[in-house]
Structures are given as C-alpha cells and as structure tokens.
C-alpha cells in the first residue's frame, strides 16, 4: 500500500502536541478517517486540514472532544444554511429589479 499520502497519527500528535486519545476519539466519532498500515494508525493527507481545524478548536479554545464534535456538526449546519441562503438570495433577485 502506498504510504506517501499518509501521516502517522503519532507524528501528527507530536507535532500538534495533542493526545493520541484525541485523534482516536474523533476517528471513533466518525469525524476523521484513520487507516491502518502495518499495524500503524495513519491519517490520509486529505483529512489533515479538517483534523487541524478540530485541533485548533481543542488547543486554542480549550474545548474537549465531545465539544469539538458538537461544534463540528454545528459548523456543518452553518455551511449548509449559508449555501441555502445563497440560493434563496439569487432567487430573491428575480423579484427585485
């Protein structure tokens, strides 16, 4: 299996100074994908950006794991709503001239 697009959970945790448990929790909650290569847990590069956002919430704002998961859900809803609002806005423009 190719490993160049993977970062070990260990490396990630050391770099960001987060507990292994943090990534474990988020993976179990289905928020990030973690794959196993030769019995080592790895994070696909595509997932890093999302994970780093969650780490920043955890580190910068001292939010615990369940809090991070909840905020993540709310942010997703916020994004969906913003998208819906954009559609509604363009629809509204039809009636304004």
């Amino acid at each position, binding site marked *: 299996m190719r490993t160049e697009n993977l*970062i070990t959970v260990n490396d990630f945790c050391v*770099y960001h100074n987060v507990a292994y448990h943090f990534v474990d929790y988020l993976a179990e909650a289905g928020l990030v994908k973690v794959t196993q290569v030769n019995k080592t847990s790895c994070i696909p*590069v595509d997932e*890093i950006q999302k994970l*780093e956002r969650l780490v920043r919430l955890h580190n910068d*704002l001292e939010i615990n794991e369940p809090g991070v998961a909840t905020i993540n859900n709310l942010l997703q809803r916020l994004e969906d709503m913003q998208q819906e609002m954009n559609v509604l806005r363009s629809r509204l423009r*039809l009636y304004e001239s």
Partner: protein
Amino acid sequence: MAFIDYYKILGISKTATDKEIKSAYRKQARKYHPDVNPNDPEAEKQFKQVNEANEVLSDPDKRKKYDKYGENWQHGEAYEQQTRQQGQQRSYGGGQSQSGFDFGGMGGDFSDFFNSMFGGGPAGGNSGRQSARYRGQDLNATLQLELRDTLESKKQTITVNGKNIRLTIPAGIENGQTIKITGHGGAGSNGAPAGDLYITFNIPENPDFKRVGSDLYRTIDVNLYTAVLGGEITADTLTGKVKLKVAAGTQPGTKVKLKGKGAPLYKKDGQFGDLYLTYNIQLPASLTPKQKELFEELAKS
C-alpha cells in the same frame, strides 16, 4: 499610526489581574476564532487584535512597556519619528497581492503599532496562539468571471507567488463557489504536505440574465399586437438568437421555458439548465387620432 488600546479590545480595566486578562482573552477568542467564524474577514480581523492584545498584556515585560508608553504615546511616536529621521530604516510587512488575486491566510501578522513598540513579530515560541501547522498554509484567491465565461470548461494559467498554475475552470461554476487546487498553498514544514490553494469565483450579476442555479431568467418585450393577434418574436439566449411563436391572446407576465438554453450544469458535461422568458406586453404610450378612433371602436365592440 494609531495608538491601540489593548485593554479596550479585551474589555478590561487597566488594573486587571493576570487571571482577568486570561479569562477576558478566552472569552473574546471563543467569539472571534476563525474556525468558528468561517469566511468572516471581520471576525478574523477581530481575532488578530484580540491575539495581539493578549500577546502584550499577558507578558509582564511587554505589559509594563506598553503601560509606560501608553500613557505618553504621543512622545513615543515623536521619538520614533526622530529615530526615523536619523536614517534608521524599518521595514513593515506589507500584504501580498498579485495580478488581481487577494491572498488571505490566517497568519498572525501584528499591527504596525505593535511592531514599532516591540520590534517585529511575536518573540520566541511564546506565541502559542499562532499555532504552528504541520501542513502548509492554505491560500485564498478570488477570480472574476463573466456569466458567458462559464458556458464551457476553460483551461487557464494563473500566477500565484511567482509560480504558474494551470487549472481547468469547470463549466457552470457559480458565483461564490470555491475550487481547491491541492498542494499549491504554502510549503509544509519538515516534509509535511503543502497547503492548498482555494480559488473563489466572483461572477457579477449579468444585466440581461438572472441566474438561479443552472436556470436563467429574462424578461422580454412583446408588442400589444403580437400578443393579441399572435405572431413570431426573436429572443436572445446566452448562445444566440432563437425564434419563438407567440400564441394569439398571450397574457402579460406569461412565462415560457426554453429547455436547455440555461447555464451548463456544474460537472455534468453536455447538460444545461433552462431559460425562462417572461413576456412584458408593451402598450402603446401615445396614439394618433386614427388609432384612438380604432381603440374606441374596439371598446364598443
């Protein structure tokens, strides 16, 4: 350069204790953190100010210096002007911009005020809030397009930080939509992956066609006689003119759908939305005596 009141930014008094500063900082950080305020430049600006205030007030040395200068800021500035006249040069970090692209990362650049008082960016590794990233920084750019530019997928080369990037803009891209160019952001540290480049498309409203998703809407004038008696009109679409039959007795505000004459569907090759035309029946504004007579005759009939 204006004096910045760090106490005011954190909403605390000048006699605030370390604990009060910390708690005020946390409160403001929770409110303005960029990760909980996605795509909100105003919040990002506030967050930077809050960080800067915390950087100064949470550090006893910096706070002492700030308090001393703060009371007598005018003198501090006069002093600075003097030193500048003596030929000392200071370089201020300017924003990057290039050929119409606006870049905005989440970098922790501090104000000129901060830099002039404390000399350069945050000292040492004490600035944990500008958290180090494993992965390179993401870059944002905006690109302006016209509605007509979105009809077909286009290959385009843009220059970002001196590097040419070839990208394909898929047909049917919408105003405000963002595409990701993987690996073209800032370099990662220690062999970590580079960040991504995000390009947000700005497509100004077309004066003729209003767009909702892949459907287009347009109002078209039809004269009274064609509407009453029926006939043929020519309508403009995005891709050319089409002839339309107008039924006799067409009412004002009638809508017709021209299937497949809308905007292309995003990432669905060969599929198009529809064009909706709304008929605006034009009534004659002034009548000749003869026409008036004829209308009077009609009214009696």
